[in-house]
């Protein structure tokens, strides 16, 4: 099975692209690693023609406003239905929000899209709380290892492993305990330490609540 991995991050191959990091880990433990290509920086029409030559397409992408980034939709608009049966399409979504229920608005769309394009739908793998991966890769060692296992399993079975998918997608919803904890963390200001550090580095802390367009 000839599979292409598409990185749907607008950051493309940048080392700051979490989707690129996911893609590299997805192929890391494969015997014969798949090609990875970025949607950003490529002509959507030409890219759509190129990927039509593969047996399977896996798009690894960040969640932007509950769905794919605009440039990924511009690429999707150029996809043509597969002329033959048996081609496969799957998605790996990574997002900043912790709970993967945030992904439920686009997941049924991805299923529908694959079916309408005459592709077998491999599924959508969801991972929340992933925004910090490029900044703190060591903290995400376990997650990235699971992504590599997902890729290795895909190479041997041409499917997304249910157990790994389940583990990555936790939590689906925030539990009452998590919510209470998050609210406390919020009240004492711990949740914004990271944001404020970056804002201060950029001399933008005092402007953080600005309303420039009133």
């Amino acid at each position, binding site marked *: 099975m000839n599979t292409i991995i598409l990185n749907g*991050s*607008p*950051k493309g191959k940048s080392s700051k*692209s979490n989707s690129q990091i996911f893609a590299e880990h997805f192929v890391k433990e494969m015997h014969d690693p798949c090609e990875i290509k970025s949607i950003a920086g490529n002509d959507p029409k030409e890219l759509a023609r190129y990927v039509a030559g593969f047996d399977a397409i896996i798009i690894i992408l*960040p969640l*932007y*406003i*509950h*769905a*794919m*980034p*605009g*440039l*990924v*939709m*511009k*690429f*999707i*608009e150029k*996809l043509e239905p597969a002329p033959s049966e048996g081609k496969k399409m799957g998605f790996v979504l990574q997002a900043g*929000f*912790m*709970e993967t*229920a*945030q992904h439920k*608005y*686009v997941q*049924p*769309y991805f299923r*529908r*899209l694959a079916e*309408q394009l005459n592709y077998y739908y491999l599924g959508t793998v969801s991972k929340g709380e992933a925004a910090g991966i490029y900044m703190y890769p060591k903290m995400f060692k376990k997650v990235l290892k699971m992504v590599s296992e997902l890729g290795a399993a895909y190479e041997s079975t041409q499917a997304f492993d249910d157990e790994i998918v389940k583990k990555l997608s936790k939590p689906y*919803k*925030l539990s009452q305990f998590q*919510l209470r904890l*998050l*609210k406390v963390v*919020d009240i004492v200001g711990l*949740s*914004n330490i990271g*944001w404020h550090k*970056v*804002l201060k580095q*950029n001399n*933008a802390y005092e*402007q*953080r*609540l*600005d*309303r*420039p*367009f*009133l």
Partner: protein
Amino acid sequence: MKTIVITEYENNSASADYTLDLAKAEIKDCIGCWSCWWKTPGRCAFKDLDEFYHHYITADRAIFFSQVSKGFVSGNLKTLFDRMIPLYLPYTEYSTGESMHVPRYDRYPDIEFYYQDSFETPAGRQIFVDYIQRVFYQFHSKSIVVEPLEETISGGGGRN
């Protein structure tokens, strides 16, 4: 009452205080730089939507006339949604039992979203409607109406 229109249809006759004509304007894609949150809070690194931002957050009502592309919003309209993130703060709140962006402004317009009803099945239409409802819920609009276009303007005036 200030009304703005965001349309993907040429020659849209709806009168409005401001119109963003997506049939003519190709919006620059969000590049994920986070300038709007980390460097110049509230301002996007690109300036092509500055006028839109002002009119959107000072409007009472925003009316969208949307095409449907491969069963979803077009890439151009999706890019507009992505580029609306500067209107919210980087912080997350949990008061509704789930993660939500915190508003940057006191109020956001009510939404009327009309779409070209080219869906082959009710399930396909529902995915689209649920998505649009969710986008503007996340964007803190209080009233969100999502309806097929045919019932609103006769003739459609579609551009395909």
